[in-house]
């Protein structure tokens, strides 16, 4: 310790600007929480090694999900247990980055058990900080795979029993049986000696990655005073008396002297070439479109299509998005439906935009296409003033009451029936929509049908239904 002043390390943000609410200076952790100490040790190491600006933390699911509030590093928040997989991708794509997967025992030991096993076995050049507090702390203290025999938790009120739940899993011992990992150590946040050992272990594990020597993991026995229902001081004692005899601290693997640094994997292809091989190369649109001449309320539509499952609601949105793409617009299509295939409700959300789309979600729509009454009632309030509502009068007997909308009644089911099949009511609606707004052209929609419809024999009837929809709008618009 050569420093003259010990203060908040530079690996932390000065102010936690990502943290919502007024308090941007304090952590969200409970008094005496082990996470704070582990955070501090990591932040100090990042500062001392000068790698904070190329470090990426992976936050897990658990109390430490908010790692991104605190560290002055990049961050990706992974799905429960998937941090090692996310870390793998980040490290391989950015070999110069320092990727630290920060995980708890529920995340790493239970749902993410195979993720950590496989990442360790591949010898990924990442650092895993594994905080073991023997319970699921965030959700109120349920039993985790690491819960000690006899330990009372929310879900083992009489104590964990070997007969029912088996023995606690020893991650370090488990991973030490693999050839690939370079460095595995278990430490504890208790007294000075153990905190300093933890400090050195974290630094060493990060150094392993900086030196390109492969997979490193530090398991840290850490207190959860709130989850354990103890004072912070009692909780530290509990680690010493209960956890450390079973989870024995020590170095479980250290083959750093035998390991030669390996050269980080190089991408053999340029990003352009990858795009090309994946078919992502931008091609000139088949039917170049231009929305500049359209009415303001029709441009860049945010469309919600809703109806019963089986009415072709998702197909309707899909064809519109596909057509938009053929016209060179940015598009997104987001389906949402219940577990029922038919008879349930379904809706989908479509963006067709001249600019890049931030989120595929449509919360305030500019266009609503309602195929049945529940959908109309449910989604009309979300349409912006001046928005377009097309509704299926064959199934909806009452027009929307709002006066600030452009409302187009379409007897879609009746027209479809007359065309030859009730099922093409969705296509009638497409025809009505494109004639009303001209956002997509008939030619683009027909080309989109070729892509969207598998049985080519049905295409003529669908095309006819679209023509009928166009015809209907022409008639009512005079």
């Amino acid at each position, binding site marked *: 310790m050569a420093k003259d002043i010990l203060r908040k390390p530079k690996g932390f943000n000065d102010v936690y600007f990502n943290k919502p609410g007024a308090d941007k200076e304090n952590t969200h952790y409970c008094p005496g929480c082990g996470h704070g100490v582990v955070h501090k040790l990591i932040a100090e190491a990042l500062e001392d090694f000068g790698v904070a600006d190329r470090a990426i933390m992976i936050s897990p699911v658990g109390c430490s999900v908010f790692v991104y509030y605190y560290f002055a590093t990049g961050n990706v928040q992974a799905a429960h247990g998937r941090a090692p997989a996310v870390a793998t991708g980040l490290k391989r794509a950015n070999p110069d980055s320092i990727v630290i997967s920060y995980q708890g025992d529920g995340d790493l030991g239970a749902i993410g058990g195979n993720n950590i096993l496989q990442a360790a076995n591949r010898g990924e050049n990442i650092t895993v900080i594994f905080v073991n507090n023997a319970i699921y702390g965030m959700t109120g203290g349920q039993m985790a795979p690491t819960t000690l025999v006899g330990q009372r938790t929310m879900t083992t009120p009489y104590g964990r029993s070997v007969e029912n739940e088996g023995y606690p899993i020893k991650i370090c011992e488990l991973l030490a049986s693999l050839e690939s990992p370079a460095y595995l150590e278990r430490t504890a946040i208790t007294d000075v000696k153990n*905190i300093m050992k933890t400090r050195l272990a974290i630094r060493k594990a990060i150094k392993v990655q900086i030196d390109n020597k492969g997979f490193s993991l530090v398991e840290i026995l850490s207190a959860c005073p709130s989850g354990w229902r103890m004072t*912070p001081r009692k909780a530290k004692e509990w680690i010493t008396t209960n956890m450390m005899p079973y989870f024995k601290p020590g170095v479980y693997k250290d083959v750093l002297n035998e390991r030669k640094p390996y050269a980080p994997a190089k991408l053999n292809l340029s990003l352009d070439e990858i795009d090309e091989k994946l078919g992502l190369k931008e091609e000139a649109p088949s039917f170049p479109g231009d929305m500049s001449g359209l009415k303001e309320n029709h441009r860049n539509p945010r469309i919600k299509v809703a109806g019963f499952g089986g009415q072709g609601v998702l197909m309707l949105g899909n064809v519109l998005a596909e057509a938009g793409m053929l016209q060179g617009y940015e598009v997104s299509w987001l389906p949402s439906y219940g577990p029922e295939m038919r008879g349930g409700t379904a809706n989908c959300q479509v963006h067709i935009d001249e600019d890049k789309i931030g989120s595929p979600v449509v919360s305030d729509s500019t266009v609503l296409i309602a195929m049945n009454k529940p959908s109309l009632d449910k989604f009309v309030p979300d349409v912006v003033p001046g928005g377009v509502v097309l509704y299926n009068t064959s199934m909806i007997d009452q027009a929307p009451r709002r006066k600030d909308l452009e409302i187009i009644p379409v007897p879609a089911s009746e027209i479809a029936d007359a065309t030859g099949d009730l099922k093409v009511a969705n296509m009638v609606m497409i025809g009505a929509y494109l004639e009303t707004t001209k956002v997509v052209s008939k030619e683009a929609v027909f080309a989109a049908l070729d892509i969207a419809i598998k049985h080519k024999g049905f295409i003529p009837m669908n095309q006819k239904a679209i023509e009928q929809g166009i015809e209907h709008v022409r008639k009512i618009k005079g």
Partner: protein
Amino acid sequence: MPRMEVYTDHCKGCELCVEICPAGVIEMSEEINKLGYHPARYKGEGCTGCGFCFYACPEPDAITVYKKED
């Protein structure tokens, strides 16, 4: 003289610094801070600058240790 400093409104009163201090120069104060805890405070003399309290403290910014007088 070395000294330690507690940023009162960052302290959550866990007492881990009090417990770990080998010189016994940290105590809990009676005042209630912004977070609603009794924060720790330096007794005023006797700090050896060992830094143990800094590493035991879970709050990043609650404790600063000056090993030499500045």
